[in-house]
């Protein structure tokens, strides 16, 4: 089985090498999509041994994931794992993340910060952004998941081939979940640990995601 990780990275020069090194024992290949960073994320990722490609202009995390996933499919990946570049996810969680796909019981696995393993989230996230995002999921899409915004996911080749990520920005998390459901993929949530080194997106970022989702819904 060829397991390919796709890491969207934007100005992650400080952390990217550590992330790549920790991932190596768990996956076959690592693809880093440098989204036109201003720092030397690209050079560092390349030197660390990842297959690194570079966007000419910054198009956002969703766009980077789309590019990376496309490349992974082109390189005959059997399983594609989306992983953040900011060292918040644990590489050790990967075996558990891909297990349901390996044994054929799932097409897509979503990492959840809210199942048994306990991730310490910033208060604004735990009590405002996440409940709101869950509500949007439920109201707009009728989807019940414990973690509405997880960026840690594993997709079978079949699932990734059917998936078209359209949202360039951060709203792609919700978009992907929605489309996995629409494609009738068998979805499993697996508990993961997410470490918050510093506050990631601010509250305003959370509201931007919700705004993006609603606008996309209206444009359709």
């Amino acid at each position, binding site marked *: 089985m060829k397991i390919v990780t796709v890491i969207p990275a934007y100005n992650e020069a400080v952390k990217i090498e550590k992330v790549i090194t920790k991932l190596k024992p768990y996956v076959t290949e690592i693809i880093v999509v440098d989204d036109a960073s201003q720092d030397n994320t690209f050079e560092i990722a390349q030197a660390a041994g990842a297959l690194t*490609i570079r*966007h*000419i*202009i910054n198009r956002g995390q969703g766009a980077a994931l789309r590019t990376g996933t496309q*490349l992974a499919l082109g390189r005959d990946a059997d399983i594609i794992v989306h992983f953040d570049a900011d060292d918040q996810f644990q590489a050790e969680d990967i075996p558990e993340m891909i297990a349901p796909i390996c044994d054929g019981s799932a097409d897509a696995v979503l990492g959840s910060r809210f199942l048994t393993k306990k991730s310490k989230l910033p208060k604004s996230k735990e009590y405002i952004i996440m409940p709101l995002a869950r509500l949007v999921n439920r109201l707009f899409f009728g989807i019940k998941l414990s973690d509405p915004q997880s960026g840690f996911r594993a997709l079978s080749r079949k699932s990734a081939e059917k998936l078209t990520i*359209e949202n360039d920005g951060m709203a792609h998390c919700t978009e992907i979940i929605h489309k996995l459901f629409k494609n009738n993929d068998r979805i499993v949530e697996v508990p993961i640990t997410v470490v918050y080194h510093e506050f990631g997106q601010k509250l305003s970022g959370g509201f931007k995601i919700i705004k993006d989702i609603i606008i996309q819904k209206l*444009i359709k």
Partner: protein
Amino acid sequence: MFQQLLAIIIIAFFLIRLFEQKKKKQISANEFLVWLIFWLSALIAIIFLKQIDILVAKLGFSGTGINVLVYLALLALIFLVFRMRLTIAKMEKNISELNQALTLKK
């Protein structure tokens, strides 16, 4: 009277500009037609403001013809903004696609 004259001058200015743009081929035939109709109807509306006043009153609206024109202008603006948003969304999508194609080509 003076206001009407001013409005006509302004409309004439935009009409002349429109024809210039058309001559320099800066706008498409469709776009040209839309704007031509827009400014011509504005011109007619301004010239026949009195009659429009009467018509509006007959239809049972309070207020004068100029109010109705402002409402219509507002509607036109909202429509244009909406269309622009769609165009921009489409453009953004195209840019991302181009970007991806260029990235993967190497």
